[in-house]
């Protein structure tokens, strides 16, 4: 059985790596910015790299927001990656306030410039870090994933869903809690890059393909 996945290409980010990972996991995949392709997709992936405002701006300019919202209403699965995950929320404060897709209530805010101990730490949060998976609410996307799996992050802003039950896994960055995986029904997102997170990342991709 071949699973089909549609990767939204709106001109930002490293689409080739995302494609490579889905290919590797056996998914027949297309990258597209075609509105009708997006609406009739079996599964959607929304990548994103760079500034939130730029990404949302590109999506709007290409007329992609409405097709994605209509796709979500059908109950089929959507996975946002990195800024693609952040765009699922209501808004972000990165370089001024920008509206997101509003699929998961909440906001995207800057990672504090200090750790919980008040000592300055490095932002962006970049590199390998451990997930903290709560098995009681992790759901199908994290099925079988090690509770402390290492994954690869690159980000300066972090998502705060209003409803804590939307946080499927966190990461700890010097005492600051980072939403690593979020989800609400058929809408899911990873702050880290599953396509750059070794075998743990590929397992998450395979899980998404089974949802």
């Amino acid at each position, binding site marked *: 059985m071949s699973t089909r996945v549609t990767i939204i290409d709106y001109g930002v980010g*490293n689409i*080739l*790596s995302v494609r*490579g*990972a889905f*290919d*590797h996991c056996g998914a027949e995949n297309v990258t597209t910015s075609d509105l009708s392709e997006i609406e009739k997709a079996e599964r959607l992936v929304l990548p994103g*790299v*760079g500034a939130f405002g730029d990404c949302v701006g590109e999506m709007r300019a290409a007329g992609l927001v409405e097709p994605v919202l209509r796709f979500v209403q059908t109950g089929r699965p959507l996975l946002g990656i990195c800024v693609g995950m952040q765009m699922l929320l209501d808004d972000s404060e990165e370089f001024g306030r920008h509206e997101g897709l509003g699929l998961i209530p909440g906001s995207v805010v800057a990672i504090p410039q200090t750790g919980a101990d008040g000592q*300055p730490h*490095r932002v*962006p949060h*970049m*590199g*390998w870090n451990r997930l903290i998976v709560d098995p009681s609410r992790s759901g199908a996307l994290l099925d079988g994933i090690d509770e402390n799996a*290492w994954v*690869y992050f*690159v980000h300066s802003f972090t998502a705060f869903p209003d409803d804590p039950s939307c946080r499927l896994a966190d990461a700890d960055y010097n005492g600051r809690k980072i939403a690593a995986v979020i989800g609400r029904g058929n809408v899911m997102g990873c702050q880290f*890059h599953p*396509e*750059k*997170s*070794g*075998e743990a*990342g*590929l397992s998450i991709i395979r899980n998404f393909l089974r949802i």
Partner: protein
Amino acid sequence: MKAPNLIKGVQLEGLRVIGDPHEYAHKYYLGGIDEIIYMDIVASLYQRNSLTEVIKRTCRDVFVPVTVGGGIASVDAVREVLRFGADKVAINTAATKRPELITEVSRRFGAQCMVLSIEAKRKPGGGWQAYTDNGRETTGLDVVQWAKRGAELGAGEILLTSVDREGTRTGFDTDLIAAVTSVVDIPVIASGGMGTVDHLVSAVKQGNCGAVAVADALHFARMTPAEIKAQAADAGISMRPT
């Protein structure tokens, strides 16, 4: 690399062909390496980067971040290698000639993408001077000052290669690493000279680097990523296990 081959030398000279770079990258990925760096060592000479083919192949079966360096001299050139699947670029020569390039790349693609590559050679009177073209061309820049300026201009990481130690297996230049890490707050990747895992431990503990780059020890199969990581973990260094 000297396309299409993976090569390795001593002090960036006396190069030996090792094999197909993608095959090695894939083997290291399966072995649990955290990141891959591809350096095109003749690119600056010919003013182009010939690695796009190998990057394309790499992102089909290597699922860790990939940094590409060699001959990258403009925002357009950065866009090109990123489009083919690289995550970061390492820039040396072009940045020493036109430091604003660091800011341009950092603003356009994010600081996380802009790795400043520095080739350092000890000066007879003390300190280090920055070189380009595999330690052949001098820039007149003091390494510590240059690293500091690079960080201020927007570099997200520094790849710091000791030309003196490169390929010698005699250990990292920990004084050099410590001198640089004490003036910048971005991560420093130490490169050049790893003979044993103890060398890695000193680079991290005394030099305070965030990562080490290993070539010789892996390419000549003296160690595996798993062995290096297990020994480093025993020495109390926290990192992703294989």
